[in-house]
């Protein structure tokens, strides 16, 4: 097989062989790593401050919220689902806990945290129930809950709660040994645990099976509905946690926090090689995609790219990444 491929590629020109590194691997992770190294070299050459510990502290802390959300949506997407409501769930969890913490000592901190997480889980449960039991397309369902939950956030629009609570303040701002942000530890721990679950437990393998072929999974006796609902609950939980980190980093609660996060997170997850139809994806890819997106935002600021052009670059990057992915996975005969 390898011989055959080598023979075939003999006649091709150098460009195609170089391009082949990107297009002919099975997972996008190696090409993502190469992409990141190229980017880092460009940024490092153009600005001395890019490759410094201080800068990376900033980069890691900045993508924390998106990273935590990405963990949940990755699980949902591997199972063939979709969750657009994460930004709104984060916003609701954030503002509700900020409002509860407004009066010092009125509600104990652990209660607030647990309440926020339970709320996120419940909203995920609602998403999951509508999607599996009523049978509405996940995109539409979460589009609807996105609007509804965001609307609920605005109930507290007049209040402008500031965070004076030590625990919440430290949650997203502290550094371990003054080098590693707490948020990075959360992300690494979450990603490692979730990838272990995906790889070594029956639940994890079932998620891949459902994403690959739902009917087959049903016929094989997997409880498809239950597992799908659980994935949405996980997504809601992480979104709520991301909301807590968000209010911690911003130091206040506002109803519009987390607006539009779903698209950013979607970009990261898709760039990381999670298939939109489900069945494919791993957390290493998502983590590197997170690094890429975070470093690009950071590096473009350092290179003094105009703010509006950054949007274009980000969009172009998403299109480029997904096109590579599509070329890589193209069927031999794509007829339609």
């Amino acid at each position, binding site marked *: 097989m390898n011989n055959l491929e080598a023979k075939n590629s003999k006649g091709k020109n150098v460009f195609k062989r170089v391009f082949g590194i990107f297009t002919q691997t099975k997972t996008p992770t190696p090409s993502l790593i190469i992409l990141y190294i190229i980017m880092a070299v460009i940024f490092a050459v153009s600005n001395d401050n890019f490759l410094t510990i201080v800068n990376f502290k900033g980069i890691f802390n900045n993508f924390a919220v998106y990273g935590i959300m990405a963990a949940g949506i990755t699980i949902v997407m591997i199972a063939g689902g979709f969750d657009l409501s994460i930004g709104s769930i984060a916003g609701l969890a954030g503002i509700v806990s900020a409002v509860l913490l407004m009066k010092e000592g009125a509600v104990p901190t652990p209660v607030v945290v647990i309440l926020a997480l339970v709320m996120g889980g419940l909203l995920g449960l609602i998403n999951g129930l509508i999607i599996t039991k009523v049978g509405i397309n996940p995109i539409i369902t979460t589009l609807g809950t996105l*609007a*509804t939950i965001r609307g609920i*956030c605005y109930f507290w629009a007049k209040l402008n709660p500031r965070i004076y609570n030590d625990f919440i303040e430290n949650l997203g701002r502290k550094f371990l040994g003054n080098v590693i942000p707490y948020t990075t530890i959360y992300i690494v721990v979450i990603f490692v645990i979730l990838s272990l679950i995906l790889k070594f437990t029956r639940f994890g393998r079932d998620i891949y099976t459902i994403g690959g072929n739902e009917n087959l999974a049903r016929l094989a006796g997997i409880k498809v509905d239950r597992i799908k609902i659980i994935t949405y609950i996980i997504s809601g939980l992480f979104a709520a946690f991301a909301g807590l980190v968000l209010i911690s980093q911003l130091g206040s609660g506002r109803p519009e926090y987390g607006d539009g996060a779903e*698209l950013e997170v979607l970009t990261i997850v898709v760039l990381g090689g999670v298939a939109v139809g489900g069945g494919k994806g791993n957390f290493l890819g998502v983590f590197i995609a997170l690094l890429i997106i975070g470093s690009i935002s950071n590096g473009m600021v350092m290179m003094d790219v105009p703010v*509006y052009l*950054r949007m274009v670059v980000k*969009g172009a990057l998403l299109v480029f990444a*997904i*096109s590579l992915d599509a*070329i890589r996975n193209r069927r031999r005969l794509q007829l339609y």
Partner: protein
Amino acid sequence: MAETSFQELKKERKKVGISNTLMLFIVLVIMIAFFGITSQIKFDQQFFFSILNLIPMLSNISYIGIIACILTMLLITGEIDFSIGGNIGLTSCLAALLLSKGINGGLVVLICLAAGILMGVFNGFIVTRLGVNSIIATIGTMSIWRGIGYTLSNGESMLAFNPVIDYLGRGTIFRYIPFPIVLFIIVIIITYIIMNRSKIGRRIYAIGVNPMASYLSGTNVKGIKFLLFIFCGAAASLGGLILTSLSAVGMPQHGQGLELTVVSAVILGGTALSGGKGQILGTLAGVLILSVLYNGLTMLNIMYFYIQIIRGIVLILVVATYEIRQSRALRRV
């Protein structure tokens, strides 16, 4: 045996009763009546049915509706275009920029439509030739278009005054009928004829139901999808021009979040995201319902965030009704 079961099926279908589209129009009529009556009771005066309310509402509906009709065709093939909002922003900035350079209004309209077609070609190329999932591809191009719009206008809003552009959104025919509504009606008629009376319409439905089968029966699946993406780009540009004309200003924020409104309207109209199902008239009803709901609730002085909640709930409720109706119909068979 077969025949009797077929006749039974027909009877059963009668029992199922009214079509989804008819249901939507009944809901629409009830809603309009409700808002008419409540406005009469609350203010002792008819605000809802006044010219001052209806004309702006219909003008606002028109550009959403034009895009929604074309998007319905695209959705029926099983693809989607989220880049319409970004397209509107770009078109609006481009138009204002060209006008500020002193270019003839008619030419500006042509250039903007050409830009829309180019954007459609780009989307179509990525989706049909490279085989990228259309949701993600168009989310990417959405931010590219909007970013270009911001770059063109440098983030500012620019005045756009020109007789041709003004007429596009604010002109009237026979003194009373606004021009954008006429455009909207023309688009409805054309798309209705395409979808219900032409060969290409049947093929569009067939592609949505089973692309493989339609390919095997000789349909140019990629070509039709490509064409619809181009239509969608052009329609979004036209919508952007109308919006620019209505607000007399070209700004990159135009059309922000519009893609979700349009997609909600189309889906409310009974089009399935997975393709193969949908009606132009259903989309018309969906657009009207969302707009009337927004207009009426605003008139009743209900706060914006309640309206947002109500919109989300209406969307989920209606789609849930479709699903339940469909599963019931299937169970009967």
